[in-house]
Every structure is written in C-alpha cells, then in structure tokens.
C-alpha cells in the first residue's frame, strides 16, 4: 500500500532527475493530489508491520484521528506546494517535499521508533529549508536546528526510558520519562519559555517558508501530544498561561509575521487545553481545532505572503494594499479572520465550541473566553490596518497565479467547514452530539468577538500603538556563552607544550593505577 508520506518522499527523490519547469509543475501537482487522494481512501484500522534491527515496527497505522490529521496535512501540503512552487528554488522544493512527507509519516506512525525518526527528519528538512532559503536566515536556521534538536533528543531519551521500563516501542500511554516527552512537545509547540524559535523563524524566513512551516511544525507537536500525553489535566492551565502570554506578546509586535506567529502560540493553547482534558470531546475538539487552525492560519500567512510579495515588506502599513488592490486575498483574509475570531458560521467557531463544552472548571472556561477575546482583538488590529486605515503604498508586481490558487483552495475548505460543521464529525465517524447552532452556543461564541470590537474601539490608541521592543532575559544566549567560554578555556590548555602533554599522560596512568588498585 502506498502511504502518503512515502509518496512525498519519493517525490523528493524524483525531483533529483533533470527536469524542466513544466514537468516540475505537473509532478508536484500529481504527487500532492495523489497524496490527498490516497489519504482520503485510507481505511481506518489498517496497519503495516516491518522488522528493523530487533524490533517489529509499525510504520503505518490508520485510525480516525490520524486519518483526519493526515487529510488536513495533505490538503495543506497541496495548497502550500502550489502556493510556493514558483517562489522557491528546486533544492528547497525537494526539502519541502521531504518535510511534508515526514510530517505525514509521523501522523501515521504506529510506534515510537518511526515517530522519532520522522520527527527528526522533519527537524532536519525544515532547518535546511530555513538555512537554504536566503542569506539572512543562516543564523536563524542554526538556532532553529539546535532548539529543535534539543526537543528531538529529549523525545529520544523519553523513548529510551519508556522502552527500558516497558520493553516495547508501541505508541500508547507513557509510563516512564514523562518530563522528557513534555519538554520535547513543549519545544515543538513553542510553549512559553521554549517559544523563542517560533516568532524568530517565522518572521525572518521567507514567507513561503513560514507558510510551509506553520502548517506542520507545531501541529505535529499537537498531534503527538494527543497520542502520548492526553489526559494530563494540569497541562490545561499550562496551555492557558501559554496562550495568554501569546496574547500579550502578539499585541506588542510591529511585524505582521511576528503577530501571526504569536497567534499560533495562542491557538496551540486551545489545543493543549482540549487534549489535557482527555475526554473524547476534548481531544476531538483539539484535533478539529487543529484542522481549522491549519486552514485559517495558513490562509493568513499566505495572504501576508502575498502582501510581502507585492510590496516587499511585512509592516502593518503595507497591509493597506490588501483592501484596495488584492480582492481575492482580502476575501480570504476576511473569512480567515472571522474563523479565527470564532464567529458563528465560520470554521473556528465549531472547534472552539467543542473545547469549551469539554471544559468544566470555571477558571478554564473564563480563560478560554479571555483567549478568544484576545485573539479577536489582535486580529482586529490586523483588519484595521488592512481595510480601515488609509495607506498610500502601491503594489510593485501582481501576485502570481499559483499563489492565489493556493489561497483560494483553502478558503473554499474554510467556508465549507464553517457552514457545515458536522462535516468533520462525519468524516471521522465520531458523534459528539453537539448542536452548534442552538442559542446557548451561538451566544457564548459571539460574545468574546463583540466584546473585543467594543474594546478595540475604546482602546484603539493603545492597541494600534507602536511598542518598543521588550528587553527580555535570553537564557539561551547565556548558556551558549558559557559553552563557548568553557571550550575556549579548555582549548587554551593545549598550548603546544609537549612536556605538559606528557605530564598529563603520566598523571592519567597513575590515576588509572590508583583507581584499579583501590
């Protein structure tokens, strides 16, 4: 059976052949569409076994949730590849294929070994996408790779602890090494304290890279958290804290891409909360939210990308071109905005409702409302700049057809899900029994949005104000300095004096003798 991940990975290999542009387009389209179709026709319950080293691995295992996640990943992959096919170099296209392929494999992984291998492959390929993308992203890529590697290694260590405690590598409840799994996922999810890579990468890297990365990186973290760590109630508060932090930070940004990246942190907060509740309602809500989030956040990134492509910068002022010159982009942006704000009849509303229903503690419910309020406030700023504020900036060039095509493709999905929220439930054959369009849900869904409009109008000058950059404590830099200084000191001991080396050697002999004798 052909797995969608394998399809993408072999696509990356096929791109090594000497090909012309036209073949490149056709091949990319065939692969992405093929992966989507293959994923759509996967039968839940199917699994594949493989003997590797002395383990029996399950590199491919389908169930409802993984199928849904795989589907949205495939849709996002198709949109992203179409969107960026004209922008990126061939080598980066290969890397993007590897990246999407390994993300899809992680989703269908049935054991920890496969999970780890493709998790790490995602890290490698995404780092190289960033490093190869442009000249200003070298250091960013370096930092990103190191941070992600820490996550990957702590996942690996967790896997080892789990393996030595239970003796198998199956992908079920974690019994040992929980903190290490948590660190791994926290880094992938850009949890507060581990979040610095996310705004840095998404704002520095070229926009098409940000589009591709934003679809998979954090979402894979969410999916793996769902697989491994669901039902740890205390994490719901952590998700809340992370999201509120995201709100505060997002409000202070000057760059649109940074704002979008902090808003990812907020959205991931919803998913963390849903997963930590652990009930079927909660986890399903989280996964549905993942689907919705991929749709609207990708559209937003793509729209900002169009703005950057046409005007060359991503400051708020430049967003102004959207309302006047880019009709399709502005429609898509509006749909995405209403979705992310959780307005009824748009796609974000349904998953937020499910998560809210799943929560029972009043504090968390309140927090959720606050988060929704914050989200809409942030995006009101976005919309304000895009449509209401006068700007004089003109577009330099027309957006490419492929970009608009990718954008429109996802917008259609958003509208469909918004109008028919039961679509996802039907697709996964899960019945949650929530009536999305009764009065109670509608009211509680629309409330934060209305409040935020009021707040925006009242506090406009604070929200729209340009904040200075915060001075914050960068622990990673300190650690790096310590690392380099230690190495420098050690290196200074190697001053070329042979006598010194010989004395080291003889001392070692004596120490060895002493150790062995006593």
């Amino acid at each position, binding site marked *: 059976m052909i797995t969608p991940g394998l399809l993408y990975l072999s696509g990356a290999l096929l791109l090594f052949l000497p090909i012309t542009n036209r073949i490149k387009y056709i091949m990319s389209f065939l692969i992405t569409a093929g992966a989507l179709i293959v994923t759509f026709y996967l039968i839940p319950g199917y699994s594949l076994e493989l003997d590797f080293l002395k383990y029996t691995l399950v590199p491919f295992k389908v169930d409802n949730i993984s199928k849904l996640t795989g589907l949205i990943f495939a849709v996002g992959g198709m949109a992203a590849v179409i969107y960026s096919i004209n922008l990126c170099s061939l080598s980066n296209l290969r890397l993007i294929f590897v990246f999407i392929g390994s993300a899809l494999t992680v989703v269908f992984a049935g054991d920890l070994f496969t999970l780890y291998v493709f998790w790490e492959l995602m890290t490698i390929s995404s780092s190289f996408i960033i490093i190869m993308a442009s000249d200003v992203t070298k250091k960013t890529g370096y930092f990103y790779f190191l941070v992600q590697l820490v996550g990957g290694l702590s996942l690996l260590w967790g896997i080892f602890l789990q393996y030595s405690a239970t003796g198998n590598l199956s992908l079920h409840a974690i019994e040992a090494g929980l903190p290490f799994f948590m660190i791994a996922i926290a880094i992938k999810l850009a949890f507060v304290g581990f979040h610095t890579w996310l705004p840095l990468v998404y704002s520095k890297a070229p926009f098409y890279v940000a589009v591709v990365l934003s679809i998979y990186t954090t979402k894979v973290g969410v999916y793996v958290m769902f697989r491994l760590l669901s039902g740890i109630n205390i994490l719901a508060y952590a998700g809340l804290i992370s999201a509120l932090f995201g709100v505060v930070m997002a409000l202070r940004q000057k760059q649109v891409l940074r704002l979008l990246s902090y808003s990812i942190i907020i959205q991931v907060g919803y998913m963390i909360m849903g997963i930590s509740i652990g009930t079927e309602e909660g986890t399903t809500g989280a996964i549905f939210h993942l689907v919705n989030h991929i749709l609207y956040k990708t559209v937003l990134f793509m729209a900002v990308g169009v703005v950057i492509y046409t005007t060359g910068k991503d400051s708020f002022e430049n967003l102004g071109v959207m309302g006047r010159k880019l009709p399709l982009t502005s429609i898509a942006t509006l749909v995405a905005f209403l979705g992310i704000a959780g307005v009824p009849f748009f796609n974000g509303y349904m998953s937020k409702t499910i998560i809210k229903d799943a929560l029972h503690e009043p504090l968390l419910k309140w927090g959720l409302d606050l988060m929704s309020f914050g989200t809409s406030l942030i995006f009101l700023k976005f919309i304000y700049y895009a449509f209401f504020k006068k700007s004089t900036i003109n577009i330099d060039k027309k957006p490419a057809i492929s970009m608009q095509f990718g954008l429109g493709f996802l917008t259609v999905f958003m509208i469909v899900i918004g109008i028919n929220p039961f679509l996802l439930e039907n697709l996964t054959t899960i019945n949650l029994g929530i009536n999305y369009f009764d009065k109670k849900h509608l009211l509680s869904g629309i409330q934060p949005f209305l409040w935020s409009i009021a707040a925006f109008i009242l506090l406009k000058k604070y929200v729209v104000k340009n904040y200075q950059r915060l001075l914050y404590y960068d622990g990673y830099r300190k650690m790096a300095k310590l690392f380099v200084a230690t190495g420098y000191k050690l*290196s200074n001991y*190697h*001053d*070329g*004096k*042979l006598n010194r080396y010989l004395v080291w*050697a*003889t001392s070692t002999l004596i120490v060895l003798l002493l150790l062995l004798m006593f």
Partner: protein
Amino acid sequence: MVIPYVVVIILFSLGIYTVISKKNLIKMVIGFTIVESSLILLLILIGYKPSGTAPILDRQYEIVVDPIPQALALTTIIIGGSVTAVMLALVIKIYKRYGTLNVDELRKLRG
C-alpha cells in the same frame, strides 16, 4: 633475585622522568633509549636461570636459559633502534626549521 629487578625499575622510572621533564629534544630521545634499555634488561632477566648457559646446544648442558626472551630482546632492540633513528631524524629536521632544541618552542600547533 629482586635487586636486578629493582635496577630495571629504577632505570625505567628514570627514563620516563627524563622524557617527561627534560626540555631538550635530544635528552628526551635519550630518555626513550633508557626506557628501552631497561626493558631489554628486563627481558634478559626473566629468561635468566641460575647457572644456565646460552641457548646454543652444541654440547649437552644441564641448564639452559630461556631462549624466547632473548629472541624478543633482539626484536625489541631492532624496533627501539628504528624508532630512535626516526626520532633523531625528526629532531634534526626540527632543529633546522626552528633553530632550537627546546621543546617549549615547538608551539606552532595548538588549540
């Protein structure tokens, strides 16, 4: 029978001391030859049997010393000699290049 061994140990330690503490390259090489000599002495000692004769059996002898250590000693001498020769060649080269025999001035490689 212990005293010859003590001599071997003293020689060995002296050689090692010379190698690790002397600054002059030639002296370091001499240290190695001292170590080598002590090892050859050790080889001869362990093959020794009281009132034994050399292992050349052109007549009948009661006690013959162990021939293996002697063969090993020969090998050791050859190897030690070769190593010393190579070391000396390098010392000559170094003297030509650096103009000194002080080991502390061989410091182009560091870090």
